[in-house]
């Protein structure tokens, strides 16, 4: 079984046996969240206002903050993958983790759909609706992530 194999890898064993590795990875996961979430908040705020933020449009900010998006995404995916790798059964069986992964897929699909719609001069009703849905899904991803530790 895949989970058995994952748990038997040297990397998984090393992280699981370390006293501080998971703790450090969780801290890195949160640092990534601050960068990704922060850049996401700024871009979303610019999208909500017709004139952008002080004349900076969504496109300007999304482009200007691409290094923050990239760094945050990299930190989150690498640290998240390593945390799951260290205890694959624990996360596989955790219902909050399953919910988080489902919501994550939906949030990524909604965001990709939003990016594919292209940028007109003014957002359409459908774009606004999808943007709201994507924002709510990302918040739900964060909340279900917090619940993993509560269960």
């Amino acid at each position, binding site marked *: 079984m895949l989970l058995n194999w994952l748990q038997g890898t040297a990397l998984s064993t090393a992280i699981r046996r370390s006293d501080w590795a998971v*703790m450090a990875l*969780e*801290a890195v996961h*949160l*640092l990534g*969240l*601050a*960068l990704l*979430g*922060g*850049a*996401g*908040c*700024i871009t979303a*705020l610019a999208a909500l206002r017709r004139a952008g*933020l*002080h*004349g*900076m449009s969504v496109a*300007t900010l999304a482009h*200007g*903050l691409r*290094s*923050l998006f990239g760094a945050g995404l990299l930190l989150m995916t690498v640290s998240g993958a390593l945390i799951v790798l260290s205890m694959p059964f624990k996360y596989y069986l955790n219902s909050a983790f399953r919910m988080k992964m489902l919501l994550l897929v939906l949030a990524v699909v909604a965001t990709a759909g939003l990016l594919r719609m292209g940028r007109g001069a003014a957002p359409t009703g459908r774009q606004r609706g999808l943007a709201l849905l994507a924002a709510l899904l990302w*918040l739900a991803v*964060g*909340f279900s992530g*917090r*619940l993993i*530790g*509560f269960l």
Partner: protein
Amino acid sequence: MTLLDLCQWLYAAPASTALRESDVVFPLIESVHVLAISLIVGTIVTVDLRVGGIILRGEPLTRVTRALLPYTWYGFALMVMTGLPLFAAEAAKLYANPAFRVKLLLLGLAGLNAAFFHRTAQRSLHDWDRRGAASIQARVIAGVSVVLWSGIIVSGRLIAVFHPH
């Protein structure tokens, strides 16, 4: 009444106990707290990296600060509004928690650093708009800000590690 007495009184208050024992409200407030910190750190790090000339170089520094710093304050208000009930619920345990103490210390230092930046740099902002680059001193302050906020996030996460059950 000592600070510890105050923390114990807060901890024992009915509202604190109800929050501590709730299965949904406590993690919900924690999630909003993390969202608020993301907004603060995202806006501050963006300004810091712009001062360092690393991102948004095509935009004047004054435009970036005026666009983002109001949201830093909204984030700060939300962080305090969510942080206070979270503290009250666990006050007696947090009092001696080393990670919590370090987090408060770093928050204070980040505040002083920001105040120092505004006192020394505010007048030069328009010069930097024309020259496109900030002074070495301002870049150092910006770098210190990034380090302090990273430390606040890490120590915040470590509160749970030092938390007695």
